[in-house]
């Protein structure tokens, strides 16, 4: 009896601590969220870019998938949903490469990195949560309204296994953040990593499935991608959404995603620890 009270006290204490820590990181998210709100012109321009891409892909697939044709399991109805969500997902990709990879480079150059190293917070989590603030902004102000509009005007399939889909979307974002953090760390090794950032953005767009569903790629590429984390960012969550994967397969995806999140974040943690030893700050 006494032991169980002690254990529960211990657990409570740790939960309280974790919550207090989490609250600090959530404030980093909030800062990014509020910051995003202040750029209005940018907001509408990006929205236009999105609509153009989605409308073009919509008509393209409408032309390809006439008369009830189905390519590798994708009907027109699937594709309409797929391109609409893939279109808004580009905001996420931009946000991660911007708020994580590019931001890390900027902080390295301006010395803001040092400022963050002087605070008793984890730099990796700070950077992650910073990006989550932007993700939340995009979800609330772009993705939800745009998809609602799309659903009313064009039509959108309702998701299968909503809970599994949402979980896999969150885990996908964490996989994405893990990759972006590793890419951002390249700034410690090269003087200008903008080329690397552009290349990875393109790779992520191609290999995460935001351009076309991955099954449409040649067989050798599809099998290669089974060993890479990129498909878990977008393609696998979408497969769950569209009901191409059953409940068991969906849960298997969640497990694989969790492994990748853990692996990438751990790699990021150790690589960062190693990288900051290379910092050379000149001036005095």
């Amino acid at each position, binding site marked *: 009896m006494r032991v169980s009270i002690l254990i529960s006290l211990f657990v409570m204490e740790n939960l309280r601590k974790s919550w*207090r820590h989490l*609250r*600090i990181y959530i*404030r980093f998210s909030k*800062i990014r969220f*509020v*910051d995003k709100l202040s750029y209005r012109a940018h907001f509408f321009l990006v929205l236009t870019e999105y609509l153009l891409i989605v409308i073009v892909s919509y008509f393209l697939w409408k032309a390809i998938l006439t008369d009830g044709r189905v390519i590798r399991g994708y009907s027109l109805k699937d594709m309409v949903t797929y391109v609409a969500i893939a279109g808004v997902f580009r905001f996420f990709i931009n946000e991660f490469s911007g708020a994580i990879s590019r931001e890390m480079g900027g902080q390295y150059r301006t*010395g*803001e990195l*040092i*400022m963050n*190293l*002087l*605070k*008793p*917070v*984890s730099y990796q989590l700070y950077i992650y949560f910073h990006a989550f603030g932007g993700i939340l902004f995009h979800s609330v102000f772009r993705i939800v309204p745009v998809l609602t509009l799309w659903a009313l005007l064009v039509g959108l399939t309702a998701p299968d296994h909503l809970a599994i889909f949402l979980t896999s979307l969150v885990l996908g974002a964490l996989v994405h953040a893990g990759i972006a953090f590793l890419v951002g760390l390249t700034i410690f090794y090269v003087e200008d990593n903008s080329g690397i950032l552009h290349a990875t953005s393109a790779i992520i767009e191609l290999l995460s499935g935001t351009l076309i569903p991955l099954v449409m790629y040649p067989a050798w590429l599809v099998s290669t991608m089974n060993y890479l984390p990129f498909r878990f960012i977008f393609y696998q969550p979408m497969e769950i959404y569209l009901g191409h994967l059953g409940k068991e397969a969906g849960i298997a995806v969640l497990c694989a995603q969790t492994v990748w999140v853990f692996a990438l974040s751990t790699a990021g943690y150790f690589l960062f620890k190693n990288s*900051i*030893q290379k*910092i*050379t*700050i*000149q*001036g*005095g």
Partner: protein
Amino acid sequence: MALIEVETLTKTFKISKRREGLSGALMNLVKREYQFVQAVDNISFHVEQGETLGYIGPNGAGKSTTIKILTGILTPTEGRVEVNGLVPHKQRRQHVKNIGVVFGQRSQLWWDIAVIEAFTLLRDIYEVSKNDFQKQLKKFDEVLEIGPLLHIPVRKLSLGQRVRCDIAASLLHNPPVVFLDEPTIGLDVAVKSNIREFIKEMNASLGTTIILTTHDLSDIEYLCQRTLIIDQGKIIFDGDLEKAKNELARKRKIQIDLYEHIDIDVIREKLNIAQLEFTKRNDYSLTISFDKNEISAINIIQTILDHFHPRDMKIEEPTIEAVVKEIYSEDI
């Protein structure tokens, strides 16, 4: 055990050399040459709890590098560093909880948010209670006059305003060890003296250990019982600068203006002391230099008063700047 222990600390930077011109730039693409710079070269020192240590040296001497190692940003190449029983670069997150850092040249605050928001964020990070936080804010407002700045985004502050907010931010959690790297840069005289008072008070009432680097030697004179001077990565002086002033700058000067024409030979004859140095400034004015430990200024003045008609006399004490200059030049 001392609060800060530095043993045989060395930091070497590897810098890639740049060749000049276009052909040089192309060569750089193919083959890089590296240069090794020893920013800190085998230095050792201890700092006790409650000390206010001045840390000075010419530009590029290795001051900031040492501070950055002590704050855990840089990893030393060789040697041992411990602050409060922690190794800064290995136990960074625990370590920075115990320290406050002000780099006068770069901000410690998040660029995009208002000052008060940055403060409350720091309050949460350092787990300062709401009560203590309010007290601290009030205290900082009195000394640093930050009240009117609280709702301005950090990026819109002027340099002086920003430095004041930075100082407040870094001391919010009452850290036992404070590193101040050029904290009074760009500040006006009134704020500067406020900050000095504040630092002195903090050291006296809370026993805060303070490491101060600055180019303004009056800060050092006012605040520090002990001063380290570093040059080219090596410590060349460790002790009380006031004492050093007395020991090193023994040369004192008297400037004398007379009503009559000056004839140095006559004056020399009257004074009749061997180790005097005479410099004629013009026909009515001269400077006499002497070692103050061997010759008393009173003797000289008395003799002059007895035999000539002085219009004005001035004794020049060596300034702390002159002392430091002398230490630098002795080192070379």
